[in-house]
């Protein structure tokens, strides 16, 4: 499954000696092995800060406990643009950084949408929007049914992904039954075509969730939101980042009249 013969792979392997991996500052370099560029637009990094804070300070899961039934679960539902996710998993040692340059190639386990059977540490395969939150509800119910009340279940969705009706089935149900070990992280880069008038958090609150909205680039604010107590109810964190329309190349400046 690993390919270790290409030149770019050797470049990636050198990362391990050049600088500490387990560091937020290392992530752009790791992502560059997939994107070919050290500079990344807001779209590629919309999830990066939130993912880092979760894996670095909140989730109780590591390569050593990746199969432990009592580990915390993180389900990446928004499987599009998984470079930040792969970079974080590689930085945390779930798989070798040497895998990153193969991103999307036939022999690579790292697809443009993650596959849980191929990626160590990936709890679900995703790509089709709207599957992660229902799967997370089932996972939380399954853990509770086994008396495993300690593990937290986290799922990451996008604000456009919230358009999918399956999410609203899950939000309504989880709120009604008070699934308190369930957490939803919504990365809001204003990409939903029709927007969410009244705010995304209000959808969760109306269904009985605890919900808070924070700056998705502010690590301390993210950490505080992630660790906010929410007894007897599920918790949603809406992390606002730059609007997607400004992603990629800068918009041409308006010409002077």
């Amino acid at each position, binding site marked *: 499954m690993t390919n270790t013969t290409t030149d770019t792979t050797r470049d990636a392997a050198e990362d391990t000696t050049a600088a500490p991996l387990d560091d937020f500052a290392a992530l752009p370099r790791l992502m560059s092995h997939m994107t070919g560029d050290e500079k990344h637009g807001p779209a590629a990094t919309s999830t990066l800060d939130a993912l880092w804070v979760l894996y670095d300070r909140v989730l109780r899961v590591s390569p050593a406990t990746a199969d432990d039934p009592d580990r915390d679960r993180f389900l990446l539902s928004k499987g599009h643009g998984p470079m930040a996710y792969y970079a974080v998993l590689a930085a945390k040692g779930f798989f070798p950084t040497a895998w990153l340059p193969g991103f999307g190639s036939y022999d690579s386990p790292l697809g443009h949408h993650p596959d849980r059977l191929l990626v160590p540490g990936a709890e679900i395969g995703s790509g089709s929007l709207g599957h992660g939150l229902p799967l997370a*509800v089932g996972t939380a119910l399954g853990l509770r049914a086994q008396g495993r009340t300690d593990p937290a279940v986290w799922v990451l969705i996008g604000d456009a992904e919230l358009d999918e009706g399956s999410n609203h089935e899950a939000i309504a149900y989880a709120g009604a039954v008070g699934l308190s070990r369930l957490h939803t992280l919504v990365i809001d880069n204003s990409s939903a075509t029709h927007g969410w008038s009244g705010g995304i958090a209000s959808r969760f609150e109306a269904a009985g969730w605890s919900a808070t909205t924070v700056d998705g680039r502010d690590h301390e604010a993210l950490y505080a939101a992630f660790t906010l107590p929410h007894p007897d109810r599920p918790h949603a964190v809406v992390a606002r980042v730059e609007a997607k329309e400004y992603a990629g190349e800068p918009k041409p400046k308006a010409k002077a009249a």
Partner: protein
Amino acid sequence: MDTMRERFASVTTQLLDEDPRLAVVLADIGVDGFRTAAERHPRRVVNVGIREQLLVGVGGGLALAGLRPVVHTFASFLVERPFEQVKLDFGHQGVGGVLVSAAGSYDWPAGGFTHMAPGDIALLDSLDGWTVHVPGHPDEAETLLRHAAAAGDDKVYVRLSAQSNEAARPVDGARFLPVREGRNGVVLAVGPMLDNVLAATEGLDVTVLYATTVRPFDDAALRTAVAGATAADVVIVEPYHEGTSTRHANDALEHVPHRVLGLGVGRRELRRYGQIDEHLAGQGLDARSLRERITGFLGR
């Protein structure tokens, strides 16, 4: 005699007591049958309301957490409406579960086409690795449900029906059973079609095979039956879309020149209400129509 759905509730209630890994997920259909079970095992009997994408997604999530989910509603809302969830939340995640449907093809004719799913097995045929049981009697339903619950992490579909044969057969969750021996062809009757097939072939010199587990398809049983006939002529009578298993019969008989006639529910909408018997006749699946179609094919 209780119905297959009643037996499903009583057997699964018992299995929940015996197997701590088992969990039931419902979407407001069949909830009454699980009241006792829900009182005894409130964490393992879940009703998500009228939310079928969530129903199947929760099943997949329970499996990811290590449980064996039993997911139930009408076939149209279990397989057709959330088909992508069936495809991705079980198969693609590499987990298993038991989907138990009711009302498949024409169980509630007065309910009309919105409550009919004669294409359920054909849809599952587009996915890899699903075991499909189609019991023809409540006792067989019990046997097959017990098989399904105990089948490790397999993906299993159990298609319950309001139509039932008079007598139960000793089904084993795998093989086709020879019910009648003959020389002029082989008629494979699936689940609740057996009684009509037996009546239709009364006095004919044909072999009747009985199938309650249709996937995997019992190639060996069909080959053996065909080997005992003068011609490799096979008629398959299924209670869902006609021709659904024809490909499997062709594959099983690839070594010998053969003919296969697939009978079952047509793709056209009847746009009729009424009773099950009227729909069987409307689909050409009553004993008289079946005899005409079977003899017409074998006599050609």
